[in-house]
């Protein structure tokens, strides 16, 4: 609330950026280029990694500019972002790891066994 400067131009710029990312995502999602879709990389396909990174960039755009985390004091920003990021990475790592393990262990009983 301290600054009286209007951010309108910046807001539209961020909107254009987020739209562009969404368009790229949808384009890749529909065309699914074989070179990306069928290339495994660190546990999933290259295409999925691209989606993941684009999503994080989008999330950054929303949090930093729309929720104006950028203008908050560093302490508050870190209290929010670092805490959540740590817990997300922590839980996702274990859950996905566990999911993969379940697949390895139970595959014999859960997979399609007829053919």
């Amino acid at each position: 609330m301290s600054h009286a400067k209007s951010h309108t131009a910046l807001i539209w710029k961020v909107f254009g950026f987020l739209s562009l990312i969404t368009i790229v995502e949808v384009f890749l999602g529909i065309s699914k280029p074989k070179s990306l879709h069928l290339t495994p990389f660190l546990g999933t396909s290259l295409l999925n990694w691209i989606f993941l990174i684009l999503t994080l960039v989008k999330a950054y755009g929303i949090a930093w500019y729309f929720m104006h985390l950028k203008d908050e004091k560093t302490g508050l920003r870190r209290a929010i972002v670092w805490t959540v990021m740590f817990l997300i990475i922590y839980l996702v790592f274990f859950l996905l790891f566990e999911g993969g393990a379940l697949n390895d262990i139970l595959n014999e009983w859960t997979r399609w066994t007829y053919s």
Partner: protein
Amino acid sequence: MEAIVAESPKGGAWSGGGNQPFGSSYGKMMMWFFIMSDALTFLGFLGAYGLIRFKFIDSWPIADEVFTHIPFVHGDYPMYYVAFMTFVLIFSSVTMVLAVDAGKHMKQGKVILYMGLTIVGGLIFLGSQAWEWKTFIHGSYGAVALNDGKIVQFVDASGKQVTLESFKSDAPSERIRQTKSNGIWFQSEASLPSVTLKQVKEGFAKHPEISMRTELIDMDVKEKTILSRDEANELLTRATHVVEGANLKENEYGKTLFADFFFFITGFHGFHVFSGIMINVIIFFNVIIGTYQRRGHYEMVEKVGLYWHFVDLVWVFVFTFFYLI
């Protein structure tokens, strides 16, 4: 109706007098902490989705083949509609942040305009989601369930999925729907599938060009496995009933868990959108009657804005994990 907190950003709620930790008012900081805890709730849901998906990595439904509809248009258009929904939500986020920006300059008229647009965007999104649910519940092609709950679908010679309707025989239906009025006990049942298993079996025998597709994903091409006629005929002897559409117990697109997670996560998100609209409407009217103009600042708009952006933020992730990956 004097609000205790925002009315006196210095002192009061923080109880220590003029303290404002991190230069943030009590209300705004609490909104942030609420958002954090809500983010962790969604993390739990999406994380569980990830776990189950990795567990069934070789037989999970392919989203492109599930969400292929656009209102008023026939045909196969994966992703376009949900992309539209994403744009609507991002755009309503933009109008929200414009409203906050206008509020900082005490431009009441502009705040009203932009908040109004935000509410309209939210309503469009919610309506789109309702339509998406309706389409998903209704189903598109129909499938057959085997005696262990697995789903088989039918494809033509080119590997494209076909509806049960397109090849079924004309065998008369074996039974009629049980309703309360003709039962001897007060029980009724859900509507029967439009095609019977017998019609599917006879139709399948009559149409040699039709084949069967299983849930198993061929990892080399990342497509569902198509069976030979012999294998298909053998599987058809294990068939128990026809499945049309999706609900919490059955899903013509494959794993029931996929439908469960879809309903649960998009439903939970949709409920957030709904409550966001409600909160926005309340603040919208407060802006119109000039509450914040008199108060001297529009921080309340900023706080509901935070919540609204958060809803958008969650959708970005739901979109990625349900529709893209």
